[in-house]
């Protein structure tokens, strides 16, 4: 099947591939790489790789405590990266941005520090049926340890959050709603501003797992009105090993530290310890110094394109991909059909063929997709599926990738005799 090449979007994704060395590497399929697994982790543009080399080669030293040129230089760049993150997510102040390893650690930090201080037996915490394990298991642990109750807001058959169910549960005055902005298993975009309003009216704080939204669309913590936000650098073209937690300053200041050690203290005696100010209070030990510079470079790369354009590009690809996939017999698609409610992350089921087989066969065609439960086993249980195949798109994808995807599906169906 050939997808018509007329375009309604804003930039040429295929042209951007020149910025990403991974597309030059030979692949064992002998075919160019159609990379459709950015929701798991994104390739890195040369700008990020070079920023890392530069940071390690010429501006590297431990931060915060050194009275010499290199350390001052490294500190300024590290704090500059914090400011870049704050700007990128519309945070009022960079002092509210805590560097962590990944979104998972950001959420654990809140569950440990805020959770263990504020949640008591009998309290209610809300999560949803569509969450990544990172935004589920820490709350299960918190509930188990404190005797609180954890409930999950239901999702509809087409993968949207059930707002009626949300309202019902909010009426019981939960302390916290932990929800993702974009579901990595379904692609659903939640109406976060509206949800936050409802949650705040009910007296609940809102923690937003923005791991799948910040890389792909303009996100402003201030405009959304949320209280905490978690993100991972590696999903937004940045290095692995770095992510961020944003939280309202008053909340962060009232929270006890999570991990303890160097850098996060004010004064240590053998009898006891006082803490440094936010955000250092939450950054025990030597942080991911060069990785912060790499994350700033990734933000620079995305800002160079413009996040509104990134979103428009992905919206365009989503519409084309959804249409093309819907045309194939024996293929079922999960999540809402509307491009307003669905990011460029498509979970699909090919009748009679297990996703693990799909992914292996696709790999032979040079098409990289994810197969499995996408760290969202409750979503799989909700739709009674063992697993799905997921194709996710980013700036370097384009219509040719959709064609490669549909071709691979046809080939797989032929091999299994289900075409």
């Amino acid at each position, binding site marked *: 099947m050939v997808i018509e090449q007329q375009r309604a979007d804003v930039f040429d994704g295929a042209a951007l591939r020149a910025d990403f060395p991974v597309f030059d590497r030979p692949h*064992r399929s002998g075919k160019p790489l159609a990379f459709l697994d950015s929701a798991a982790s994104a390739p890195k543009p040369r700008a990020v790789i070079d920023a890392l080399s530069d940071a390690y080669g010429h501006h590297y030293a431990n931060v915060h405590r050194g009275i010499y040129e290199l350390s001052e230089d490294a500190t300024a760049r590290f704090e500059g990266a914090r400011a870049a993150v704050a700007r990128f997510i519309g945070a009022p102040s960079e002092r509210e941005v805590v560097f962590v390893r990944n979104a998972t650690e950001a959420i654990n930090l809140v569950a440990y520090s805020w959770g263990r201080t504020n949640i008591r037996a009998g309290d209610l915490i809300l999560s949803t049926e569509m969450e990544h394990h990172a935004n589920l298991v820490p709350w299960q642990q918190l509930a188990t340890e404190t005797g609180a109750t954890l409930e999950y807001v239901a999702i509809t058959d087409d993968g949207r959050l059930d707002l009626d169910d949300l309202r019902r549960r909010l009426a019981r005055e939960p302390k916290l709603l932990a929800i993702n902005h974009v579901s990595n298993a379904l692609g659903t975009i939640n109406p976060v501003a509206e949800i936050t309003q409802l949650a705040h009216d009910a007296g609940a704080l809102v923690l937003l797992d923005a791991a799948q939204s910040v890389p792909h669309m303009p996100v402003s913590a201030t405009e959304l009105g949320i209280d905490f936000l978690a993100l991972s650098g590696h999903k937004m073209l940045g290095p692995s090993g770095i992510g961020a937690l944003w939280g309202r300053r008053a909340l962060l200041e009232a929270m006890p530290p999570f991990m303890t050690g160097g850098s996060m203290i004010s004064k240590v005696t053998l009898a006891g310890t006082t803490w440094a100010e936010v955000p250092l209070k939450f950054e025990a030990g030597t942080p991911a110094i060069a990785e912060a510079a790499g994350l700033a470079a990734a933000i620079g790369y995305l800002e160079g394109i413009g996040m509104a354009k990134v979103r428009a590009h992905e919206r365009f690809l989503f519409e084309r991909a959804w249409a093309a996939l819907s045309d194939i017999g024996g293929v079922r698609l999960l999540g809402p059909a509307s491009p307003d409610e669905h990011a460029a992350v498509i979970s699909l089921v090919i009748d009679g*063929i*297990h*996703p*693990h*087989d799909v992914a*292996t*066969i696709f*790999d*032979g065609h040079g098409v990289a997709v994810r*197969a*499995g*439960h996408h760290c969202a*086993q409750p979503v*799989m249980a909700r739709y009674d*599926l*063992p*697993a799905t195949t997921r194709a996710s798109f980013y700036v370097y994808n384009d219509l040719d990738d959709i064609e490669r995807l549909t071709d691979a599906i046809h080939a797989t169906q032929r*091999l*299994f*005799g289900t075409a």
Partner: protein
Amino acid sequence: MDNLYRDFILEHYRDPHNKGVLDPHDLHFADSNPTCGDEMSMTLLLDGEKQRVADVAFDGRGCAISQASASILTDELRGMTLDELRALDPKEVIENLGVPIGPARLKCALLSYKVLQGAVIGAEARWPDEADVLAGGSAP
């Protein structure tokens, strides 16, 4: 890898041998592959001395690799003693599959082996160590 999907693998997948549940049976175990959600159970009937496998069946849903692996493995078990089952080498299970299994699909290929071990030791078995099983160089 397309060459994983040889015709005989797809035939075992479409038409698995020994599929179902034995009733009555002497041994039963169910386990799953956490990375893909595949679930598999196995029932074994022993001979009069409760020493050797008289009959065996597996059940559950899964990918072509795990289904073909279970189909091929269960074909081999009749007449074996419990000690022989416990001593089964996961490497052999992979070799008997006759297609190159890489690390990403190893758990699919070994799910049947793990369920069988669970049945004979009466408890959840560990996944064999990837490095050990792939050491033979069957990785693509």
